[in-house]
């Protein structure tokens, strides 16, 4: 009786190290492993599917070509998410500059395109309350929305979010705090 080996569970960190050593299969595995996460996050920053797809392509091409000069990373997912964000923000900014070359840009709004429509509030019974919530969430600042996404959906730590969003951990925490507060107020949990 031959005892089968345990099937291998993909380990991002190990794959990353192998990739840095020039293992192209590890690169392929990393790509497949992180693609859904990166794509979903990218789509929170930009609505343009092709832009998100191309950005992910560019990032993996970059890390492969520069693998000799890239160091170890603490968190592969945080590194890649940050890269997606940087890339997309850059693309969106240059697109805006091209479109509104003569206009002065507001600093905050030029950073990322808001995409709060995808924040679905599931309250269940109360349709009126739901509509109210949705309406309010349309106005949720994009960075708050983004931090909430990384926190709730990707379950990242404030430290990781801070690295990705280039803010301090405290600011990342504040974003989540404020987003949660808005939600709570809307859900009518002010009274105990």
């Amino acid at each position, binding site marked *: 009786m031959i005892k089968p080996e345990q*099937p291998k569970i993909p380990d991002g960190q190990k794959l990353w190290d192998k990739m840095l050593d020039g293992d192209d299969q590890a690169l392929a595995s990393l790509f497949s492993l992180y693609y859904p996460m990166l794509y979903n996050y990218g789509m929170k920053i930009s609505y343009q599917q092709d832009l998100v797809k191309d950005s992910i392509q560019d990032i993996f091409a970059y890390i492969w070509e520069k693998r000799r000069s890239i160091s170890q990373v603490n968190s592969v997912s945080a590194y890649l998410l940050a890269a997606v964000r940087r890339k997309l923000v850059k693309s969106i900014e240059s697109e805006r500059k091209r479109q509104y070359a003569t206009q002065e840009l507001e600093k905050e709004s030029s950073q990322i395109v808001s995409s709060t429509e995808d924040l679905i509030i599931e309250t269940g019974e109360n349709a009126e309350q739901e509509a109210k919530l949705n309406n309010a969430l349309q106005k949720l600042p994009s960075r708050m929305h983004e931090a909430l996404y990384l926190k709730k959906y990707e379950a990242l730590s404030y430290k990781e979010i801070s690295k990705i969003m280039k803010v301090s951990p405290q600011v990342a925490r504040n974003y989540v705090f404020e987003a949660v507060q808005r939600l709570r107020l809307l859900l009518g949990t002010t009274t105990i």
Partner: protein
Amino acid sequence: MNTKYEELLTDESFQRWLSHTASAQEYKKWATWLKADSSHQAIFEKAELVWESIQFSTDPIPDIELELSRLQDRLNLKTQKRITMKSYFSKKGIAQLSANFSNVWHKGGAWPRYTALATAMFIVLLTWRFLPLLTNPGDQAVQTISTQFGERERIILADGTKIILNANSRFQFQKVVESSGAFQVELLGEAYFDVTPGGKDFQQPRFLIETADGIVQVIGTKFTVHYRGEGTTVVVEQGSVRILVSGSHKNPGEVENNAVVLSQGNLLKFNKGDKILNPKMTNVAVHTSWWTEQLIFDNTPISIIVKRLEETYNVNIEMQNPQLLQQCISGSIENGDLQIIIIALAKIMQCTIQKQNDTIVFIKN
């Protein structure tokens, strides 16, 4: 008091507790907290409501495999799939195959690509051969055509008849039947025939294909014959053929009792000496797709597919759980090379693959 929710909900440990990812220690801590004050239950419930209300829609993910090959193209990491080189399946080949398989993991994502070398080893080689000499079957040089594992031979006869001899098969010209001018050939293995109509008045058989189980008489038609020692299977794609089952009568001219005509869409499996012949209607493509670009399955048991792969590629394939063999699958798989087929099959069956000695083992996830 109002900030209580925000404080709780921004606490990472509390978040983990709500998301059921807390450690045992954290779990204990929050359970204690819950009981510590009678108001905590209500706070918890409302905090949970807020937390659960945060739902993000996710976009449909693009085809990851396609995206990966885009990347590999760009970085010149793409494997060359269609290398035609004459190499059969050695133990070294299997070792290389398994080396690649060991890097294959399966957890919802796409499959990593494979290297060019192993791919080339397991490709089915298709060669062409033109046989104008068939009109002279006495010529020793062309009397027998045989294929190795992983080799397929396409034979084109002077009258336009095409024969595709599958891997590990032998095709032998026996004689010209004097009365009709038909060619009698013996088949061991598997072959697909596309016979140009002809013969005397288009009525006489042009071909007589003989296996140990009997004779297939052909006028002009497309069909496939499979014989590897456990009965002969004939499937007719177009036209009709007549089967003469071997038994007490060896001479096709005398046989009437155990003969049957198969028409388009019919399948007959028969053994030497069979008295009762039951042609069935079948999905012809399932039986003729072995030489095309797509292998086609239609509620086909895994056991049949495994057998076919073993016959074609000289590999041993086992299921860790033999019940898997009874499963049936429908659909098509690119008929490129063994590795592509095995990986696709594993994906469909939700199995991982391991190589144990010279055997490829499928293990249910």
